[in-house]
């Protein structure tokens, strides 16, 4: 098999894996938009905040220690213990649930029935606030995140493809883990929404707020629930991306990778986020491989948006989005 074809196959496989990581970020946006019509600008910062909290808990870091030390002249930094990853993840989920409750109580409860643009602006404010709180709480140094996920080349794929084609494919173990986690996450979300009372209530709210209210579903509870789930999804995304680069404030920029995925897959569809992520991942990687060298490279950022725009022209609601019908 020609080298270029093998390289293209390797790029395509890695594109699929990258697409899963994009989809993980996009999922959080979809959940909140579907349930409340809010485009949550803070989703990227939620991934950052949850990852910061996870590392902070794992390392036994004292929250707000810089602030405490500055005010009281103390020299506190760590509790002196190390929390196992599983326990730390569980505690972080609780923190994100408390965050969801606070967001609902202090922001969105007061903005019910407001214009979508106002809700969007509120999430912008929330993003900057949360980034500042994260900085105060955990500091802005880059933190190594190790929850035990394997990283580096997958030896089995390398050897197997080498024996088959004479060229060993590179697939990152972390990407394989992300794919497995994403599959479990999506299956769990689908099972939750199909087979649990709360899940069905969530779907009812997503379909029609007023109808859901009329049958006694608490909008307040559902919104806290959905923000909590989005917080959990953000944590998963934060773990996967943070394991690559360390947990640092640029982690919030991963939201930029989710936007073309949402445009393509639709803002209201979980399968859309997955398929959109895969299309964007493969599309941008193959374009960079095939066309990039002819145009100076670094095409991925803009090509993802071009691809999404092309889809928008023909299907404004995205691949799996609900058809937009405006009655007059």
């Amino acid at each position, binding site marked *: 098999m020609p080298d270029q074809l093998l390289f293209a196959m390797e790029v395509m496989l890695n594109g699929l894996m990258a697409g899963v990581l994009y989809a993980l970020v996009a999922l959080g946006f979809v959940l909140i938009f579907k349930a409340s019509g809010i485009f949550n600008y803070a989703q990227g910062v939620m991934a950052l905040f949850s990852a910061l909290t996870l590392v902070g808990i794992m390392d036994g870091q004292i929250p707000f220690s810089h602030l405490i030390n500055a005010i009281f002249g103390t020299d506190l930094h760590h509790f002196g213990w190390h929390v196992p990853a599983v326990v730390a993840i569980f505690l972080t989920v609780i923190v994100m649930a408390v965050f969801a409750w606070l967001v609902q109580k202090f922001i969105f409860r007061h903005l019910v029935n407001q214009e979508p643009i106002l809700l969007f602006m509120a999430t912008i404010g929330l993003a900057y606030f949360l980034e500042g709180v994260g*900085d105060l709480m955990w500091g802005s140094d*880059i933190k190594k995140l190790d929850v035990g996920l394997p*990283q*580096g080349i997958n030896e089995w794929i390398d050897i197997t493809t080498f024996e088959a084609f004479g060229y060993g494919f590179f697939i990152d173990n972390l990407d394989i883990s992300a794919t497995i986690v994403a599959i479990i996450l999506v299956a769990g979300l689908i099972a939750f929404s199909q087979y649990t009372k709360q899940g069905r209530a969530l779907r009812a709210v997503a379909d029609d707020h007023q109808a859901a209210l009329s049958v006694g579903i608490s909008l307040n509870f559902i919104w806290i629930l959905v923000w909590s789930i989005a917080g959990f999804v953000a944590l998963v995304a934060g773990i996967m991306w943070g394991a690559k680069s*360390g947990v640092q404030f640029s982690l919030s*920029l991963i939201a930029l*990778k989710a936007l073309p995925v949402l445009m393509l897959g639709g803002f209201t569809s979980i399968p859309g986020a997955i398929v959109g992520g895969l299309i964007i991942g493969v599309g941008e990687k193959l374009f960079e*491989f095939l066309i990039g060298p002819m145009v100076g490279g670094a095409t991925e950022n803009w090509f993802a948006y071009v691809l999404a725009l092309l889809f928008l022209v023909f299907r404004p609601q995205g691949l799996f989005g609900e058809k937009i019908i405006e009655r007059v």
Partner: protein
Amino acid sequence: MRLLAMATAAVMAASPVMADLVFPSLSYRTGPYAANGIPFADGYEDYFTLLNERDGGIGGVPARVLECETGYNTEKGVECYEATKGEGALVYQPLSTGITYQLIPKATADGIPVHSMGYGRTSAKNGAVFSNIFNYPANYWDGASHAINHIMSLGDISGKKIALVYHNSAYGKEPIRTLEELSKKHGFELMLVPVDHPGQEQKSQWLQIRQQRPDNVLMWGWGVMNQVAIQEAANIRYPMENFIGIWWSGSENDVLPAGEKANGYKALTFHNLGKDYPLFDDLQKYVVDAGKAAGAGDQIGTALYNRGMYAAMLAAEAAKTAQELSGNAEITPAEMRDGMEALEMTEAKMAALGLPNFGPEFKVSCENHGGNGLGAVAQWDAAAGSWNLITGYEASDQDVIGALVDEDSAAFAAESGITPSC
């Protein structure tokens, strides 16, 4: 009694008041690049605090650091400049190539010097054109040459393939022209691998490197791009000793997330590393123990802290030179500029400051605002968690770089209507 108090106040107001020597610090303690901005800003501020606490300032005049948060954002950086220049600012460290480019015409018009140490517009080395801009002791083109010289010192470079993984911005593209010239001169193949901002996802780039197997990889990265690149290099099992970053890709922040896998990674530098210098004892005594350390006081001795401290040391030495030249303790920005242009750093001077062998020796002149262009290579020891210099401060290829500086500065002079003069 009231009359006496008023009279006293009037006399005090009429008396000459000892002004501060103002050194603005355009820092970034927030945003995606905060992890790099904090140690530099801490080092810059701590050095001036030390001078104030230990020596009573510079030439008897207290130094005042005027910190302004830029968030590594060019627009905010320019706002900071405008907001602080009226405070008697003596010299600006923009700490961003983008901000430096914006400040070149503004600061020149205002008569305030700018020190873009190891960044900014490389051809500002030509002081005949860039009268107020200084970039000593080394610039990006020196860095490109240092990296190639280091590779050549380890074996024949002819016929080798060398990849440049670079931030796809004005900063990242800086070394390309120099590397192209050096590739013609030494016969190596240059492979360009751009990475878009912020560089969180680099799978395509490192697959390309895995497929094309360059002998060496150079990196001009910043922020998250560095950490991801080092992790991806480790993932594809690229030999770390063949991977060399510019000095902005050579901090502890860049290597720690990859853990043991980053062992052997190299980075260029124009100053020494660690804190095994007498000056750090004084920092501990007069600054840290006195509770006057900048920030959280937890960055002392890191690569970027040392760089900030080195920048402050060079600013203070230039201020001393200016005081000697002008005979004034309270110097003006114009006198500071003259001091920077007459600055000479010798090993004896650095040793007397408590920083022996901390930086290269260099001399600034009207024609040469970039110093001697000396630089060294450091290597990361993951087990010890420290950077170690593995070369001395060595010269760059001035035959190639000098011509490029002349060409680029002449173009700037022509488009800006500047008549070069010294």
